[in-house]
């Protein structure tokens, strides 16, 4: 048969079989026991032309509805500059493999180097790796790395103000990996610091993971936390979405050893949950325990600047079962998304994105609370996301009512909570419409 993806003519196949010394394509499987062979065609539809594929996708697209997005919870509807998808779709980048052959991979290696440097500067830490799968798995890796680095201590404290999906993934990893986890309760929407101090007393705590901003959108105050932990030889990890790093006190400035989270908020489309990109940064002291790839600068034999994958002695293909992580490549292309986005936006753009989002969020929050049908659950400082207690209706009913009108009215949190998010893309008109929908 002829197919647009198979270049073989019948004459090609005949000549190649002759060189190999077999009579037919099926004879290439002569050693496979007959009883293992399928002996029939796969039960799949016939192959489709491109025009038919477009038609099938048009049908699927019609069953999806675009909603005006007031939800966050790990996926943020920020603006993506036109140039970003244009650059990332260049096939010299997208169709290449992991850059093992540095001589013909300087493009990939250079943008990963730039990405690492940008993330290190945003988090205020020394070094970034070349990405993790997403924010949740990056946080789970931070948990495992802290126990590996702390040697004989095997307990990690997780703040229950971390997003639920992050907690769920950490719980899954820990139930197989063997790290012991203690959940630190929340108090008035914040991590209960007293509970951390009490848990530290047992002396088996390798580290603590706290969110920033937290699951309710609240910006937490970690004054004194790093000193307290370091005094007990425990590590501090701060986990959160990346865009707010442009305006909030950085994990490094809080004294954190590790910063991790999802960088989807740096120009990556919502995309029904992926692909996103987990970021992972640490202090120099921890570099040899870092999971994932790292790109470093060196020279070629003519003395020119060159970039290579480095510190590979940490990695799974060398250490095999002694590796502390099984990560090999993660979300390479998404590093380019982030690097191109941050190049275009710069610190000023990031500041403006966060300022406009925060203003929108405070405007919307006030309008909803003023209606008397909602109250702000926790009177704490927030950035672009906030939790309301619904006094007049059930959150699930509000969400479906709004969806009928073409709005995604946040995400449900518990029986009475609604977590809403505003980005710079939301207009005043859209916010006013949402208030109308939720309060009438």
């Amino acid at each position, binding site marked *: *048969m002829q*197919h647009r993806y*198979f*270049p073989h003519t019948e004459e090609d196949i005949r000549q190649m079989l002759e060189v190999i010394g077999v009579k037919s*394509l099926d004879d290439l499987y002569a050693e*496979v026991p007959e009883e293992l062979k*399928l002996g029939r*065609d*796969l*039960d*799949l539809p016939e192959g489709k032309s491109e025009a038919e*594929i477009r038609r099938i996708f048009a049908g699927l697209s019609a069953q*999806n509805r675009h*909603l005006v997005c007031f*939800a966050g*919870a*790990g996926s943020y509807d920020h603006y993506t*500059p036109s*140039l970003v998808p244009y650059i990332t779709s260049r*096939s010299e*980048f*997208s*169709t*290449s493999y*992991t850059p093992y052959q540095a*001589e013909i*991979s300087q493009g*990939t290696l250079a943008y990963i180097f*730039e990405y690492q440097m940008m993330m*290190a*500067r945003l988090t205020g830490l020394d070094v970034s790796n070349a990405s993790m799968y997403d924010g949740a*798995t990056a946080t789970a890796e931070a948990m*495992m790395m802290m126990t590996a680095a702390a040697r004989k201590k095997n307990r990690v404290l997780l703040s229950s103000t971390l997003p639920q*999906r*992050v907690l769920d993934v950490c719980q899954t990893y820990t139930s*197989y*990996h063997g790290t012991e986890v203690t959940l630190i309760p929340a108090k008035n929407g914040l991590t209960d610091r007293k509970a951390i101090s009490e848990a530290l007393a047992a002396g088996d705590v390798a580290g603590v993971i706290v969110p920033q901003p937290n699951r309710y959108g609240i910006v937490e105050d970690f004054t004194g936390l790093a000193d307290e932990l370091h005094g007990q030889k425990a590590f501090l990890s701060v986990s959160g979405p990346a865009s707010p790093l*442009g*305006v909030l006190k*950085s994990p490094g*400035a809080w004294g954190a050893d590790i910063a991790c989270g999802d960088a989807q908020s740096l120009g990556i489309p919502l*995309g*029904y949950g*992926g*692909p996103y990109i987990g970021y992972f940064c640490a202090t120099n002291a921890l570099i040899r325990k870092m999971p994932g790839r790292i790109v470093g*600068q060196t020279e070629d*034999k*003519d003395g020119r600047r060159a970039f290579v994958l*480095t510190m590979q002695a940490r990695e*799974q293909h060398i250490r*095999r*079962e002694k*590796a502390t992580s*099984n990560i*090999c490549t993660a979300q390479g292309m998404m590093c380019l998304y982030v690097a191109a986005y941050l190049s275009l936006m710069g610190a000023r753009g990031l500041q403006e994105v966060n300022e*406009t989002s925060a*203003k929108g969020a405070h405007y919307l929050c006030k309008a909803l609370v003023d209606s008397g049908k909602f109250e702000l659950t926790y009177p704490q400082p927030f950035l672009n996301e906030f939790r309301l207690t619904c006094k007049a209706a059930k959150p699930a009913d509000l969400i*479906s009512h709004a*969806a009928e009108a073409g709005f995604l009215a946040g995400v449900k949190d518990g029986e009475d909570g609604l977590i809403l998010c505003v980005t710079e893309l939301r*207009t005043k008109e859209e916010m006013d419409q949402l208030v109308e929908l939720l309060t009438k």
Partner: protein
Amino acid sequence: MNNKLYSNLIFELSRPGRIGYSLPPCEVEAEGLDCLPATLRRDEAPELPEVDEQTVARHYTNMSNNNFGVDTGFYPLGSCTMKYNPKVNEEMAALPAFTQLHPAQPADTVQGALRLYWEEQQMLSEIAGLSEFTLNPYAGAHGELTGLMTIRAYHRSRGDEKRTKIIVPDSAHGTNPASAAVCGLQIVEVKSTARGTVDVEDLKPLLGDDIAGMMMTNPNTLGIFETEIPEIARLVHECGGLMYYDGANLNPMLGVCRPGDMGFDVMHINLHKTFSTPHGGGGPGDGPVGVRKGLEQFLPDPHVVRREDGTFALECRDGSLGSVSTFLGNYGIIVRAYAYLLSLGRDGFRMTGRLATLNANYIKERLKSHYLLPIEGLCKHEFVFDGLRPEYGGDHHDDSHVTTLDVAKSLLDLGFHAPTIYFPLLFHEALMIEPTETESKDTLDAFIDAMLSIAERAKEDPASVKAAPHHTPIRRADDVKAVKDAIFKYGG
């Protein structure tokens, strides 16, 4: 032809005061960042580049010229399945009806997205001969970890807590033992025979009631079909363990022989290898995990299910191993693979594996006069040479001989990507070649000519081969210096 200025790092192109973005004005009067106490805010702006839009365009376009992709040329990387990445996949993945969906949207507003996921998992189940797939794991290694968690969840559900060991062949991909370790399993290594296949006699004494299962890939990392797989599966099942199939080498089996029919219980697939989604310079990929009947409930949450009325929904299950991803994996990659599954269909999958195997055997037969073939006979999608033959480039025991690394670097000069080198670890000078089915005989012939010319040159002028590459954007990089004087930031 690169421009020197734009080939600098983006930080070096930065000039204070330049901007590359535009945002709509803020329309509301409200408190913004001011409402945060100063202690919670940054003291200083982060040092990010300040560049205009065109500079960013030129910088990354120049960078891309230093890269080699499948669209640039032949990419015979063993175990990586670098097949053509069809462009209709990209077009479908960029449809706003998919890219604009938020994962928290109510199910009735995302029926198209859920249907696509469900149909894809049905198609993969048929291709693999298994009962159900999750598409949530993000990559091959993540799929392995998820698959091993599935196996542990199965044993736990039966109250069988003592099965903490997993058998892995010594030829396995490095991720196999690493994934097992992260999953809290101890690794027991089984030896290979002289033909590179699992040594069944070495396996037997390893089996017992502490064995959770065995990880294999078939064909194995040498491209050789493990003909004793029915016996191996029987032995492992008899001791109460489950069989795990590493799908890295699934391509040659497509439409010929299915992992489920070989006796495997759990497997992962790499959508970025077998199902044509781009490798992206190291991700994002996707690593769906499939299971045989009776193990479905252990797969990770959330599951996509079809209800009796034909609508689709998300569901969490009792007994599930938990969740391994924020949502439904790398959904955009799942979309691309669906376009590929539709493109090939029943008739396309009849040929995929067979043509991949044809291409590999053709190269092997034509090059074995100059390169050392340690294992004769039919290979599947890939095969391994143990470097140049001694008469081309010298004896392997002689330090001055022309190595596999030298051959790989010489190929770069000739416009080919190098094969996988120094893996598997069974041979000192391993050179692992996987052509895939999307390469024409003309491309293979050009590659064969290049490989033969390198061998001839290794015999006549070994110094020039050892100094390669000569014509690439950079020459051999100093890996030792990169570790010793580690630099991760421009400007210190």
